[in-house]
């Protein structure tokens, strides 16, 4: 049998599943190696809030037994993965990285977790995140920041910072994050991994803590396009428990040839030529990738998404309005943190104190903004107006995608910034979502693929596809991966561990 610890640094998720199924390596050994790695490194990175050591090893062991007995194995049998701590997994706490969910253990299973389990995956634990998915740097967790495995003094991006860092650091072979305005794609870009936000409605939200109901989607993060596609094929598809779940067929996400010949690639001028604040190193990587696409036979098309400058304003009204409503249930009555009341304090005090104590500053800021946007006298000018502009943005994407197979551009305007660099100014932080919010508002699928580095920091290219056409988007991404031929880049964690020693 191969050395499991070494395999963590050489296998992809697809490879791992095949190796376990073939008996080349035991699931128990792989899971054991992952747990050791976590023990060794996560003190530094903080990517995990909960590790289910016993459960993971038990699942791994039973996978090995099943294989030996000749039983049929699921497509992810024995493969260790992690999931963002917004996803309900019975037996593990659910915190949403917030003090307000102190002590909460879900009595039901999220559909995406059930599908992972049914496919045989080993769920190692829960990824750290920005509290209630609100943030772009994973500096808003109530339980500590997440550090970027490529440069531990820098942010991994957010809000699925823990999910992206876990994949980059090799805590298993993939993770699930959530994306509302860029929260999978941005950290994927900053951590040099692949991350997919599916079409709205493609993946069930049942059992996933809601931030903004018309924007949230669960999606995979992994080291390669094929890995992410496999995860999406397992978790995606209609769920009767979610009324916003689509019945559109998933399509074939896994066996496309990755041929770029004849593909039409749209480049929105607002994302590159006309973009403000775009780091030159990032721009350079993106242009290089576009050239590679062209060399491989794709046609590059100039397109425009004219309402791009309005995307962030639209997003921060719609998303916060929905969030203010979704977070009303965190009230100290039925679960989570309840403030200790003084003599004579009543129900209003219970609500105000529990929520005041339990929510962090960014969450409070967004609840306040969202409540304001929905309140009497302001609804028309703020929330409803934003919904109208949303339609304009949606129509931009649909229109541009009529003449193209996918759109491409940078995922993030800058590579990973330093911890603490952006935290003084909420608005500056919001502007990191400039390229990602549009696809969320339009509901179209989008993904980030690592395409190089600048200043030794990962750069991600974003691909945006037509509604429910993940198949084409993923295949173009596959083609890009092949054309660039960069291979899987992994940070040298040992070197970092050595550097941090005195």
């Amino acid at each position, binding site marked *: 049998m191969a050395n499991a610890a070494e395999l963590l640094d050489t296998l992809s998720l697809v490879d791992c599943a095949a190796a376990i199924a073939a008996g080349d390596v035991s699931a128990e050994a792989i899971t054991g190696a992952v747990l050791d790695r976590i023990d060794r490194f996560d003190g530094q990175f903080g990517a995990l809030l909960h590790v289910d050591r016993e459960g993971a090893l038990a699942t791994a062991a039973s996978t090995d037994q099943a294989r030996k007995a000749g039983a049929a194995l699921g497509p992810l049998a024995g493969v260790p993965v992690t999931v963002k701590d917004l996803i309900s997994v019975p037996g593990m706490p659910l915190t949403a990285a917030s003090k307000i969910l102190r002590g909460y253990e879900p009595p039901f299973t999220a559909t995406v977790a059930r599908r992972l389990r049914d496919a045989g995956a080993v769920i190692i634990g829960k990824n750290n995140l920005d509290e209630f998915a609100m943030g772009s740097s994973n500096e808003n967790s109530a339980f500590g920041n997440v550090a970027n495995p490529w440069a531990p003094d820098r942010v991994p991006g957010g809000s699925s910072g823990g999910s992206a860092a876990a994949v980059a650091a090799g805590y298993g072979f993939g993770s699930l994050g959530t994306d509302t305005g860029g929260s999978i794609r941005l950290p994927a870009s900053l951590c040099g991994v692949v991350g997919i936000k599916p079409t709205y409605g493609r993946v069930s939200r049942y059992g996933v803590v809601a931030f903004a109901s018309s924007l949230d989607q669960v999606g995979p993060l992994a080291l390669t396009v094929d890995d992410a596609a496999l995860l999406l094929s397992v978790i995606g598809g209609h769920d009767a428990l979610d009324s*916003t779940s689509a019945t559109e067929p998933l399509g074939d996400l896994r066996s496309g040839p990755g041929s770029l010949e004849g593909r039409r690639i749209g480049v929105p001028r607002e994302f590159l030529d006309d973009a403000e604040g775009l780091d030159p190193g990032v721009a350079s990587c993106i242009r290089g990738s576009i050239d590679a696409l062209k060399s491989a036979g794709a046609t590059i098309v100039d397109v425009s998404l004219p309402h791009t400058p309005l995307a962030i304003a639209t997003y921060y009204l719609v998303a916060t309005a929905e969030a203010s409503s979704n977070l009303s249930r965190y009230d100290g009555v039925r679960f989570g943190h309840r403030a200790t009341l003084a003599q004579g304090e009543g129900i*209003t005090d219970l609500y105000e104190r529990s929520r005041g104590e339990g929510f962090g500053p960014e969450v409070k800021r967004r609840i306040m903004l969202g409540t304001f946007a929905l309140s009497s006298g302001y609804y028309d000018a703020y929330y409803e107006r934003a919904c109208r502009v949303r339609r304009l943005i949606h129509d931009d994407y649909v229109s541009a995608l009529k003449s193209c197979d996918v759109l491409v551009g940078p995922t993030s305007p800058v590579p990973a910034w330093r911890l603490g660099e952006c935290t003084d100014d909420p608005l500056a932080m919001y502007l990191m979502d400039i390229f990602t919010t549009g696809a969320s508002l339009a509901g179209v699928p989008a993904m980030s693929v690592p395409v190089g580095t600048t200043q030794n920091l990962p750069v991600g290219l974003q691909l945006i596809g037509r509604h429910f056409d993940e198949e084409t988007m993923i295949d173009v991404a596959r083609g890009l991966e092949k054309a660039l031929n960069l291979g899987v880049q992994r940070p040298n964690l040992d070197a970092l561990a050595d550097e941090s020693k005195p």
Partner: protein
Amino acid sequence: MSDTIDRATVQRVARLARLRLSDAEQDSLVDDLQRIVAYVEKLQSVDTSAIQPLVHMTIDAMPARKDVAGQPLGTDKALANAPEAADDAFVVPRVVGS
């Protein structure tokens, strides 16, 4: 700077949202919200009078389920996470009108 957000607004909104804010938090939120609201004023630059709001992101209409009672969680599971429970119920400070 937006004139819409002042301390009174912050207090009113905080009450609607049942958030207890310290004075420092109120000050900070007045600042933050003023700047954010000023930023989102750019949405006024577009004429949306002829545009229908986009709220529902799915193509399908509302799906319905058959009227069959399933297995509920049951009292014990329902109360398992309760900060305070007694006599099979969630306990809270006395509410007016009950």
